[in-house]
């Protein structure tokens, strides 16, 4: 199965967590750690002008990838801040118009927690469920919109299961109803085609480090016409970024994000086809050998590089331990700080045990076919070994229906 000797260990295949900064991005950033160190807000000398030009160039590069105009890009520290600013900023600005916000249960924590905070401040939040394939039901969304609804926030691509929501249709519906539409597109932009006009979005959260740029920099697209979106700033200060986000700009990071977005635009078509082929190679190699493996969520509406699989009767953390020369992540409770299995996988309704048995593979720009072959072979080997060790697999093979077994309760201290 492929040439194992060609791969360098460990293999990084966790590209939804973060991506390696592209060497071309690092190259572009270097001068801004050195001789070009001005503050982009210094209007009266050359140091400031040089920094400002770099920021404006990056703004253009970022706007271009999503079909926006440069003036609609507000720089932030990352997608978490962008999501906070979009949702809280709209909530505060449009409070008199209404107090209802709609989101979905599989959003990133920074959206869910932001909404929960608003709930404490008198806003009403609808958390839409998702279907078994991970997609929201558009009719449910339609029914949830009231005359009090000011914002719908639905992510473009999910960070765990890679599911692509029908944002174009969601945006159309929102615009028909006169409701603003925000999407967290941190995982989607640069991976799949995205256009703020065609996709009918009003606010878009973007991240640098998910697209082979640096960490600590992000942006928020804020639509300027049809409709013109207004926000209440969530941080007080010098009024940078047209008053929406105070703080001295992270020039080096912004330059890197700009370069990363430029590269993504140039390489998107070719790269997404290549990643899809690698992802499918990984999936089919695993499925060809192992029984009882399941892809979590729709395979069709999915990021090209994402594969989230459950290996029934094998616990995720023990699987990670066996493939410790491969960096991936698991929805198993044991790998999380809270000891709760992934809420995203639970939302698909497959049962907690499938969440405990899940692995998220994130194939990215720097992965090769040889690495995919190595990962597939290693996963197969370790799953087989752990199933030999699994009382559940043994019972399954004996024909026991595990859902009918009366299990002894967990120890009281857990």
């Amino acid at each position, binding site marked *: 199965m492929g040439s194992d000797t060609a791969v360098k260990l460990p293999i990084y295949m966790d590209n939804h967590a973060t991506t390696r900064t592209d060497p071309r991005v690092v190259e572009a950033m270097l001068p801004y750690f050195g001789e070009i160190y001005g503050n982009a807000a210094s209007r009266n000398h050359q140091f400031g002008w040089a920094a400002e030009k770099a920021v404006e160039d990056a703004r253009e590069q970022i706007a271009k990838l999503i079909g926006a105009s440069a003036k609609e890009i507000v720089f932030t520290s990352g997608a978490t801040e962008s999501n906070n600013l979009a949702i809280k900023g709209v909530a505060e600005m449009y409070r008199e118009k209404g107090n209802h916000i709609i989101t979905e249960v599989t959003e990133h924590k920074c959206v869910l927690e932001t909404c929960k905070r608003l709930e404490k401040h008198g806003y009403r939040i609808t958390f839409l469920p998702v279907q078994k394939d991970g997609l929201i039901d558009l009719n449910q969304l339609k029914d949830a919109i009231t005359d009090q609804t000011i914002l719908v926030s639905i992510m473009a691509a999910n960070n765990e299961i890679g599911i692509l929501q029908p944002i174009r249709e969601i945006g159309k519906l929102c615009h028909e109803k006169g409701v603003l539409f925000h999407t967290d597109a941190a995982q989607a932009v640069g991976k799949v085609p995205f256009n703020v006009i065609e996709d009918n979005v009003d606010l878009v959260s973007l991240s640098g480090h998910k697209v082979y740029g640096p960490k600590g920099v992000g942006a928020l697209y804020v639509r300027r016409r049809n409709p013109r979106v207004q926000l209440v700033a969530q941080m007080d200060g010098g009024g940078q970024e047209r008053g929406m986000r105070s703080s001295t700009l992270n020039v080096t990071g912004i330059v890197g994000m700009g370069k990363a977005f430029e590269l993504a635009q140039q390489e998107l078509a070719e790269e997404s086809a290549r990643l899809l082929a690698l992802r499918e190679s990984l999936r089919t190699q695993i499925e060809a050998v192992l029984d009882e493996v399941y892809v979590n969520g729709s395979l069709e509406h999915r990021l090209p590089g994402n594969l989230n699989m459950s290996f029934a*009767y*094998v*616990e995720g*953390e*023990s699987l990670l*331990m*066996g493939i410790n020369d491969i960096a991936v992540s698991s929805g*198993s*409770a*044991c790998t999380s700080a809270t*000891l709760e*299995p992934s809420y995203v996988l639970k939302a698909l309704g497959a*049962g*907690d*045990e499938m969440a*405990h048995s899940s692995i998220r593979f994130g194939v990215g720009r720097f992965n090769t076919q040889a690495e995919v072959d190595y990962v597939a072979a290693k996963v197969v080997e370790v799953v087989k070994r752990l199933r*030999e*060790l*699994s*009382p*559940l*697999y*043994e019972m399954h093979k004996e024909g026991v229906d*595990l859902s009918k077994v009366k*299990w*002894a*309760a*967990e*120890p009281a*201290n*857990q």
Partner: protein
Amino acid sequence: MAYSDKVLDHYTNPRNVGTMDKNANEVGTGLVGAPECGDVMKLQIRINAETKVIEDAKFKTFGCGSAIASSSLATEWVKGKTVDEALAIKNTDIVKELSLPPVKIHCSVLAEDAIRAAISDWKKKNS
């Protein structure tokens, strides 16, 4: 999370993996935990009716590395012990031996439960 060398050793070379005939009179079976909690341990022991000594032990575990190590260690420890001696094994002994961090203490509790459940199954069969 970093694992202790002993956990890694039991995970890589688990001792006494296997299955005994659960219907045999001399065999006690303990099945504890639940799939939705992410841990299920099956521990089986074969007991000499005369001496009350545990002559053999086998396990299978669905769970994290610490759960596998805890049950693997439990089989090692119960072998050669009498039923009463095995009942004296405490989860804290397992925690200490494997250097389990606080979030993994439940794995040791489950292993202790498995020993008790296996012995109680054997007692029930032989009462």
